[in-house]
Structure formats: structure tokens, C-alpha cells
């Protein structure tokens, strides 16, 4: 019944590595997201500053969406490489635990 934590089992090393990478990328995105909230609350006038025909609010807002997608692709590339390197593709046996 004890399924074990995220780092156990045959796929332990890849899973452990992926989890750590995930946490770091999560922290990175959180900082950028926090930066957006802090500008909104501490210096909202800055959000109105011009960037080309647009302004900081639009550029930062779209940027947060695009940055999320970019991080997602990078994360996937790193994880796929890790799965191949540790040579333990997540197979059926590992995902279908019996109760």
C-alpha cells in the first residue's frame, strides 16, 4: 500500500531529478510573476510607460504567457533527456499500481 514518495522505485533517479528541476523552474517563474504583481501594487504608473506602440502592462502580461510556454518547452526537453539518460522510461508497471 505504501506507494513511496516521488523519489523511490526503479525510476527514482529520473523522477528525483525531474522534481528538482521542476521546483527550480517554478521558483524562477514565481519570481517573474511576483515582479509583475509588485509593479502593479507598488508603482502602477510604471505599467503605463510606453514600449513602442504598446505599454509595459501589455508587454509584461503577454510576456508572462509566452514565458510560461517557453519554460514549459525547456522543462520538457530537460526531462526527456533525463529520462533517456537514466534509461528508465516510465512504463506501465510503474504507473499502474495495484491497490
Amino acid at each position, binding site marked *: 500500500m505504501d506507494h513511496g514518495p516521488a523519489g523511490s522505485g526503479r525510476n527514482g533517479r529520473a523522477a528525483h531529478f525531474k522534481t528538482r528541476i521542476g521546483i527550480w523552474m517554478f521558483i524562477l517563474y514565481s519570481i517573474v510573476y511576483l515582479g509583475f504583481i509588485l509593479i502593479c501594487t507598488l508603482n502602477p504608473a510604471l505599467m503605463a510607460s510606453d514600449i*513602442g506602440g504598446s*505599454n509595459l502592462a501589455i508587454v509584461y502580461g503577454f510576456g508572462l504567457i509566452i514565458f510560461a510556454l517557453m519554460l514549459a518547452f525547456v522543462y520538457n526537453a530537460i526531462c526527456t533527456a533525463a529520462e533517456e539518460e537514466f534509461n528508465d522510461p516510465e512504463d506501465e508497471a510503474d504507473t499502474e499500481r495495484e491497490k
Partner: protein
Amino acid sequence: MYKTSLGAIGVFVAFVLFVLWISYYFARRTKSSKGYYTAGGNVHWSVNGIAFAGDYLSAASFLGICGMIATAGYDGFLYSIGYLAGWIVALFVMAEPMKRLGRFTFTDALDSKYSSKGIQLTAAISTLVVSIFYLIPQMVGAGTLVEPLLGLPHHVGVMLVGAIVIIIVATAGMASTTYVQFMKGGLLVIFSISLVLITLYNGLSTHPQPDRNEPSPVLTTMAVAGGQDGAPVPADPAYQLVATRETPAGLTFAKLSKAGRPSWWHLTRDENDNPVLAETCWVTTLEVPILDSKGNPVITLYNGIPQTDSKPLQSGFIKKLIYRGESRDEVRNLSINEFLATIKSSTIVRFLKASFKDNGENTTVYYQKPTPGRELLTPGVMFKIDRAKGATLMDKLNFISLMMALFFGTAALPHILIRYYTVPTPAAARQSTIVAIAVIGLFYVLTLFMGLGAMVNGVVDLTDNNMSAPLLAKSFGTTLFAIISAIAFATILGTVSGLIVAASGAVAHDLMDRFFDMQLTDKGKVLAGKIAAIVIGCLAMFLGIIYRGMNVSYLVGWAFAVAASANLPAMVMMLFWKGTTKQGITASIITGIVASVGLILLSPDMFERYGLARSAAPIGLNNPGIISIPLSLIVLVIVSLFTKKTDSAAVAAPAVSAQS
């Protein structure tokens, strides 16, 4: 009101027939519990990714966010940013562990290390609370949508959606739900792209035509002949002043009469600071009903005409169009950048609301408020965040709290998390999340253009901004309107099915099978799930009918706050802190639910709903996340530290899985 469109009915019926066929097709292939709860666990990641979008992009996203952007500009787009950012938490923290540790439900993954009755019970309750809070606004929305689109009464709309969803879920569970969501997610994005492209091509104009067949009346502004200190005297002698009313906020409205027909005007100043009267749109609620042209009693008048005889009050337009530094009447075929740059340099008339009593009748006026486009493209129109405009520390905390709940709530919504069990491997869970981020991110970028497009094209229904996106489509032709309306329906079907699968899993799998240990056979589990789905579906219909007419969109906010507070700290700590105990998780979930719901019930917004003064609320916070999320985390750590020893003893003897 809105005219029923035959096209909309046709597209809707075709869609429903297709959905029913999908359910019938998969019903024969869904005999096992794995088939029912996880669509067999072998859905391709790309299909699952788009189904995520279909599951997640609820009516709140499509109708609600576009409506908010159409009335408040960038502030509505903040929801788009927060809702999308939440997927980062789903990808980096939840996706793979959920798949690796769980089987059917979120509770499975959380309980995987402990096999604790306490976790099973509290996590199942949290799933039910979040799902039902989320479900109510969807069902009310279904009824609201059906009235204008199909010409059916509210309760028929709710029952129609309820019945279709029950068929989807009770026939083939997650299998049919997945493909309904896949189809809806795909259609929503494709037609949102079309709508945005048409909006850009159509361009911007100072005289938008929301309805090509019936030109809308132009609201006028006229000079005031008399001094502003005394009663305003309209410059046009055809109008006589009947009365003036002043609101507590210091606004003055004048009731004028022309050939016996009343109208309300806002006493304001033009750009040269001369006093002027600006025409308003107005709604009167009578105490004694009058008869409309068909002889039905009505108590609501739009601009003095019975609501049922009048067109909806639609407005919002560009007052001064500046394109590349030049003043223009219209510009067409704009690029994304030009569209935003032109709105930024132009002046847009929004409509604000004020209410007062006139001869005992409740009167609401929507008055013109010329707003620089520059302001509408920055945060702060709806949210108070600028100290220069009177924002307090509490206002800022409220804003931070909301953005926190959006960020942390997404990855803790049970109906999203169960989609992780429909793919075969953790790697597929990850890849499907990336597809979801791409599709949902694209959609949220489009919301800004749909919302702003509605704002400047005169299509915002002043009494209900939720109709902004469909009405924008209507201004481009009834075919597009029919399709977009049918998609709005599909949006509700897709999300409601997901919610009902999640709730039925909590009842049948978490509670009946695991918590009460009812020793169900595999077939029994499927039957229990189907019965639970029918019961929850009926409950949803009932709630959708009794909450009719209430603005319950705030319940989605509650669902995010409860999910972020009750589910996320427990899941994250279970994954990343070895010291986490089952008692810690149980206590954290209970704290999360109680603290978030409790804080909401004590908030100024709720006090206003109780009919009490906002200032009487003990806590000035409307969004509980900033308190309840850390509180739930702290409780988890403290309880875990205190129960560490007893827990390791329990693990040593797994037969004793005492309830915590």
C-alpha cells in the same frame, strides 16, 4: 430583448446530437472502473492537452473575462494572466507526481503514502466543496445563456444542460467527457481566433454598428443654457426639465421630457469645461407591473419601454479615434500592434452605473464616461491599486491575494487533476500539460482582443456584460453569432462534465470504496460512480434553478481560494517534505477549507450581500488566499512535527490505519 436565432438552435442541436453519439459510442467500451474514471488511462497526450483546455476554459473564462475586459479593460486581462500562470504550478509541481502516485482521484495521490481515513475523508470533502462551488455558476450561466439564445426559460436551460451532462457522464464517464472537452477546447480556440481576426479586419470606428439591420440610436450631448448652480436648462427648447437627482457620490442626473417622453441625462462638463447634459441609458424597476405589447406584465423598463419590447441596452464606443497621430473616423484592417496602439491613443466612452430612487421607483442610469485608452490598457480601472487614486494597503493586499489564489488555485482544482489519470505515463502527463499551456495561453491572449473589440464596437450589454463576446460575434453576422453561442454552450457542457466526474469520483471512489471500505466489485464501482454522477447532476440542476438571477460568479473565486488553501499546501508538502504526517495533511485540509470559507463569509463583499455595512465586516479582505494559504501550510508543519513519532509507528504497523 435578443431575438432567437434559428441558426443558433441548428448549430446547438447538431452539437448536442454529436455529443450524444460520442457518449453512445464510448458507453460500449466503458465497462471497467478504469474505463469509467480514467477513460482507460490511454488517451494520447495531445488529445488530453486540448481536453485540459476544454475542461479548464469555463464560461467564466470565455464569457466572464471577455465581459470584464469589455467594461474595465486591462483589469479583466489580469484574470487571464493569473489563470494561465497557474498552469506553471500544474506543470512543474503536480503533473508527474499526480500520475505517478494516484489512480483515479486527487485523494489517491495525496493518500498514497499514508492510507489514512482522515486524508480520504477530508480530501474527498474538499473535492466536493470545490466542485460544487464551481458547478453552481456554470449551471446558472447555462440558464442565463439559454434565455437569449434559444428563447427558452431559465429553468429549461438549466435542466437541458443538466440532462445532457448526466447522459455524457453516466454513459461513459471520463471517456465521453474527454472527447467532449477535446472538441469544445478545439472549437473554442479556432472560433476565438476567427473572431479576433474579423475584429482586427473590421478595425475601429467612431460610429460602430452593433446591428447592421437596425442602426442603434446615437446618444447625444447638449449644452446647458442655464448656470450650473441652479437647475440646468437644456439648450434644445424641445426638452423640458422635469426633475434632478443627486447621488451620494455627488453625480447629478436630470430627467428631461420631450413630447411627453422622459429621458435621463448626466450633468457633466465637456473637454472645454462647459456644463453639458449627456444622455444616459436607463433602467427603471416599477412597483406596479405594466403590460407590454404582448399583454404580459413587466416591471422592468429600458429607457422607458417595457424590457420585453426593447432592444438590450448596448453601448461602448470610441469618441476620438487617433490613428498614427491623426484624428480619423474609422480605420480598417489593423495588425495586432496597430489595434492596441490605436486604442491606447484614442478616447473610449465606457458606461458607468449609478442608482437612485425616482418617485419611489428604483432607477439605474448608465452614464457615459470618456476614458483615455491609455488608462484602459493599464491595471487600475476596476482594482484599486494606485495610492494616488486612493488605494489603501488593504486594497493592495486584496489584489495580491486574488493574484495568489489564481496562481495557486488552478493546480489544485480536482476536475483538472483527474485528467492526469487519463494518460498512460508521467511523461505523457507532462506533455499534455504543455499542450494545455499553449492552447490556453493562446486563448487568453485572444481574450484581450475580444474584450477590447466588444468595448469599442458598441456591443456591451450594459445590464449583463457576460454577453460581450457573443454579441461581438453578432455584430459581424448571425452565422458567427450562432456558432459562438453554440460554443458558449459547449463550454458549459465540457466544464460541467469534468466537474461531475470529479465529484462522482470523490463520492464513489474516495468515500464509498476507500473511506467506508464498502468492498465494491469493479462493476459495482462503475455503478456507484454513475449513480453518484446522476445524483450530483440533479443537485446541480436544483442549485442552478434556485440561484437564478443571482450573480454567483464569485463562487468560482471561492472555489479557487478553497482549492489553493486546502489542496495545494498538502500536496506540495507531501511531495517535498519527508516530515509530513497524515495528521498534518488532514489538519491542513480542514484548516484550508475552514479558513478560506470563513474569511469569505466575514468579508466586506459578503456583508454587503447580507445587507449590512461593508465597514461592519471584521476583516477588510475580500480574497482570503493571502491568509488562508500560509495558515494551512503552517498548520501542516506544526501538526506534522507534533505527530511525527506516532505516525512512524503507524507506518511500521500498516494494518492499524487509524483515523486521524
